[in-house]
Structure formats: structure tokens, C-alpha cells
């Protein structure tokens, strides 16, 4: 009983962290079709923003949930104005330019923070379930993820801003004809996507030792989750994260964490080969 509870929490945590890692990219890539290879570095900067803010005496939750997304969102805004807006519609060029950006960010972080591991302790203590110790912070991540998914759904589905953003992504000329500036809407959407990446990096920061190259650990997972998810933003994100999370946690428990990671990647290759349109290209068609 205790063991099954622990495993359930671990599986939920695995799925939630995948959703969290991929949310920002889902907006930037899934909606705007910008392949942001600097996504991992946005998360890395979110982590550093949190640690710096905590070091300055800010409450850790404020740092994670408010400061980090704002800082990274602003960095994203600058990047969008300087580089990315010149490259909309040029898929391969954006990919290369953002890869270059990711190297720039790694270099900057190395120069500012040094090539050493930094971290903060988890703000929520663990507790015992029967004979097992459970990390309390995992619950926090699961809850943040659930709130995030619901909020994204509500914004995109329920608000006028979400409607305008979705419309512009589908037919920017039509949105322009109706009096909305696609340029500004793209800018705002990129800001939101970067802020989500920053939030994810910040929330995951207490669990990992942060080094300037930490972003590389996230980028591949985020990409395969978003691409395997397919055209529907939220349904795709949740469904692919669930399937990859299940596969990876199953192999982690059955064999070892490394095999779990490898199994996730192999599952991704198989999935992309069999369903190049992504999961929601075949199922849940037309959902958000």
C-alpha cells in the first residue's frame, strides 16, 4: 500500500516535471512555430534568477513564482526584438540562431556565476509514508503543474487575449485586417513563453545542482514532448508528457534511472516514427 502510494507520487511527479519543462516551449514552438533551442538556457536563467533573489533575501516562493518568470520573460522580450523577429517563418534559421543564443547565454552565465555548481535547499521538508521517505517538494511541483495547465487552458480558451493570440497564430493577415498588430502579439506571446520557461527552471532549481550548462539536460526532453504532442497545445502536452512519464518511470523502477532516461528517448524515436504528426494529430483532433 505504502509502496504503491510512493510509486504513484513518483509517476505523477515524472509526468508533472515533463509538462513543466515543456510548457514554455509548447507556447513558443507549438503556437508560434519558433524552434527555440535556447529554451533550456531560459530555464537555466530562471534557476539563477531564483538563487540570486533568494541570496538577496527575497522569500523563496516569491522568487520562484514571480521574480524568475519576470526576469526571464524580459530577457525573452529582448531576444525576440533583437534576433527572432527577423527570422519568423524561417524554420532552420531560427533553430540555428537560437542555438547560437543558447551558447551565448551559457557563456554569459559562466562569466557571471562561474563554472561551479550552485543550488538552494528545498523549501518544503520531506515526510514519511510507512517505511518510505517522500520528498514533500514533489507535491509542490505536481500542484504548480496542475495550476499551470488549468491557467493556460483558461487564458487561451476563456479570455479575449487568448483568443486574439490563437487567431493571430492561425491567420496573422486576418488578425491584422481586424486591427490587431501581429508584431506586438508575437512579441507578447514570446514573452509569455519565455516567462513559462523561467518559471519551470525556477521551480525545478531546488532539485538540481545548477551549472551554466544545465539547460542541455532539459532541451531534448522538452522538444520531444512538444513535438510528440502534436498540433493541439494543451491536450498534446499533457498526453505526450503522460506517455513519456509513464515509460520513463516504469523503466526507472524496473531497472535504473539511466535506463529510464534512455527508454524515454527511445520511446520518443518510435513515437515520432510511427506518428509524425504527433499524438494529437491522430487522437483528440481539433481540441485545444
Amino acid at each position, binding site marked *: 500500500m505504502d509502496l504503491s502510494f510512493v510509486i504513484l507520487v513518483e509517476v505523477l511527479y515524472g509526468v508533472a516535471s515533463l509538462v513543466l519543462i515543456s510548457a514554455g516551449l509548447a507556447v513558443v514552438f507549438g503556437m508560434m512555430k519558433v524552434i527555440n533551442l535556447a529554451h533550456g538556457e531560459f530555464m537555466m536563467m530562471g534557476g539563477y534568477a531564483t538563487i540570486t533573489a533568494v541570496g538577496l533575501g527575497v522569500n523563496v516562493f516569491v522568487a520562484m513564482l514571480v521574480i524568475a518568470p519576470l526576469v526571464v520573460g524580459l530577457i525573452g522580450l529582448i531576444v525576440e526584438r533583437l534576433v527572432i523577429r527577423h527570422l519568423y517563418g524561417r524554420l532552420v534559421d531560427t533553430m540555428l540562431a537560437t*542555438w*547560437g543564443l*543558447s551558447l551565448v547565454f551559457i557563456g554569459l552565465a559562466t562569466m557571471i556565476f562561474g563554472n561551479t555548481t550552485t543550488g538552494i535547499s528545498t523549501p518544503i521538508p520531506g515526510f514519511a509514508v510507512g517505511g518510505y521517505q517522500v520528498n514533500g517538494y514533489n507535491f509542490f511541483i505536481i500542484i504548480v503543474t496542475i495550476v499551470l495547465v488549468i491557467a493556460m487552458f483558461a487564458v487561451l480558451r476563456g479570455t479575449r487575449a487568448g483568443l486574439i493570440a490563437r487567431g493571430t497564430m492561425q491567420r496573422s493577415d486576418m488578425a491584422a485586417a481586424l486591427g490587431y498588430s501581429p508584431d506586438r502579439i508575437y512579441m507578447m506571446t514570446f514573452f509569455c513563453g519565455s516567462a513559462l520557461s523561467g518559471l519551470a527552471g525556477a521551480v525545478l532549481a531546488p532539485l538540481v545542482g545548477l551549472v551554466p550548462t544545465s539547460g542541455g539536460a532539459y532541451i531534448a526532453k522538452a522538444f520531444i514532448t512538444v513535438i510528440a504532442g502534436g498540433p493541439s497545445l494543451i491536450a498534446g502536452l499533457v498526453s505526450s508528457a503522460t506517455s513519456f512519464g509513464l515509460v520513463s518511470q516504469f523503466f526507472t523502477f524496473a531497472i535504473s534511472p539511466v535506463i529510464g532516461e534512455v527508454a524515454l528517448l*527511445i520511446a520518443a524515436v518510435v513515437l515520432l516514427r510511427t506518428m509524425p504528426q504527433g499524438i494529437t494529430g491522430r487522437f483528440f483532433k481539433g481540441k485545444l
Partner: protein
Amino acid sequence: MGRSASQDVMITLVVSAMLIWLLPLMISTYTLTVLVIYGMLGLSLGLIWGFGGILCFGQAAFFGLGAYTYAIAAINIGESTLPMILAVLVPAVFAALLGAMMFYGRLTDVYLGVITLVVTLILFKFVNSTAGPQYVIGNARLGGFNGIPGFQTLNVPGDPGAYIWGDPYFYVCAIALVIVFLLVTWLLRSSFGRIAVGIRENEVRMGLMGYDVAARKTVLFAIGAAIAGLAGALFANWGEIVTPNLFSLGQSAEIIIWCIVGGLGTRFGPIVGAAGLAYLKFMLGQQSMIDNTLVMGLILVLFVLFLPRGLVPAVASLLNSIFGRTKRKPRPRRMRRARHG
């Protein structure tokens, strides 16, 4: 159409002979060797990306695979001839299988990039985790993060005692690069190369004309991997150790940057880009003011924004516009562009 095939070969031979003679006077052969090897690696991606239109994010996988194959085979065999051949064959076969899976599944651009990226990551993660004594191939321990040191380095075929190292090794690598370059030239002049370029330009049309697009892409992909594998084996010999970093994303990124900076769709561009940027990195490594990665990243961003065609084509068209009016022939080698591109 320009020069004929024999002229092309002659020019290549003369220029490369001059470079092989002149460059060691300026840069130490130890550094030059690795520049030559990177040039070959750049050429491998330049071939499949610039002429075949296959953007592979995992060229480092084949590079690393070649290096590891060489190291493992060399420990087990104790002689370097067969391991060199294996180091070319294993990545080629691996790439053929991977390519067949992707191209027969009609995967393109983004999906191709992601799958090659993921395969590289799988290899990286797997090799990184093989530190334990249970991971053994023959007599060779895989060694995990520490890599494999102490294998038999290149020797004169048939005589394991006669090592090739130092200056002679540079000449071996340089001649290998020239041979590979000539083979690539020949391949691109053949009908196979022309059809590959046709597929890059318009895949559907080539398919409708009756060419088996998937098979041709797979073969081209395997050829690129074979060249990368050879470069990997030469690199293993140069460094005398192989580590999982050969598979890393950073390595893959660098290869792509070389091609972009040098110029896609040329044979010469990726080699220039690779050698030039590797040398720049070497120079930057001697100071600690500015971080290396930062400069590389900036170069990539600036090139994508302002010079997306790359250095070699840009210089070529610049010289053409300067010298074209006065009807003087531009100096041949610096600006030679692929005539089939």
C-alpha cells in the same frame, strides 16, 4: 559549367600540396592535425546538409562512434589497420539503419533534427553510464565518463611496433583529407551527386521522375557518417583517449556552426569554417577574459542574421563583383563554389 574534372583534381592537388607544405611553417603540426581532422568532420556534414539537404543534429554521434569503434577494436586486435576500416564501417552501417528508419518514414526537417539529436543523446547518456566493470567489449572496458585511454595508436600497416605520430601523422591526416575531398568531388560530379542535389531542391519532383528518394538519401547519409567516422578514428589517434564528450551536444553544435560560417553548398566552406573556428577557439582558450562559448554563440547568431550564406560564397561573390567587371579571372581556390549547387 567551368572547369573539367581533371582540371579540378589538378587544382585541388596543387593547392593542398602547397598548404601542406606551407602551414606547418606557421602553426605547430600538433595543432594542425586536429584542424585537419575537424575539417574532415565539417566536410562530412557539409556533404549531407549542403548537397543532400539533410540537416543532421547528430553528426557528433558518428564522429564519436568512429572514435570508440577504433579504440575498442584497437585494444582487442593490437594493430591499427583493421580498426581503421571498422571505424569507417560501423558508423556507416549505423547511419544506414537510422537513415532507412527516418527516410522511409518520410520524416523531414524538424523531425529529422530531433531524432538525430535524440540518438546522439542516447549514445551520450549510455556511454556516460558505462563506468562499471561489467561493461566490457572483448578486452576493452568502456570506462564511462573517464573514456578509454591507452589503446594502440596508428601504426604502419602490418607492423604494430612502427607507430605513426608527430609530424608524419599530420601528413597522414592531411593526405586522408585530400583523398576524402577528391572522393566527395567525384561523388558530386557523378549522377548520384546530381540527383542528391535535385532531391535537396525538390524532393517530390525527383520522386515523380522515378528516383528512389528514400534509398538515395539513406546512402548519402551513410557516406557522410563514414567520413565522420574516419575523422573520429583519426581524432582518437591524435588525442590518444576517447571520452563521451565526443558525443556531446556541444560537439554537434560546433559542426553545424562550422558549416554555416564556412558556407553551405560548397565543398570548401565547411573545411575552412571548421579549421578557422577551431583555430579561433584554440587562440581564445589561451586567454580568460571572454568565455569561449560566448564567442562561438555570437558568431553563429551574427552569421545567421547577416551572412546566412556563409563566408566562402560571400567572399566569392564579392570578388566576382570586384574582378568580374575588369574581366580578370578571380583567384581559383579561395572562392571555388560547387557548380552543382
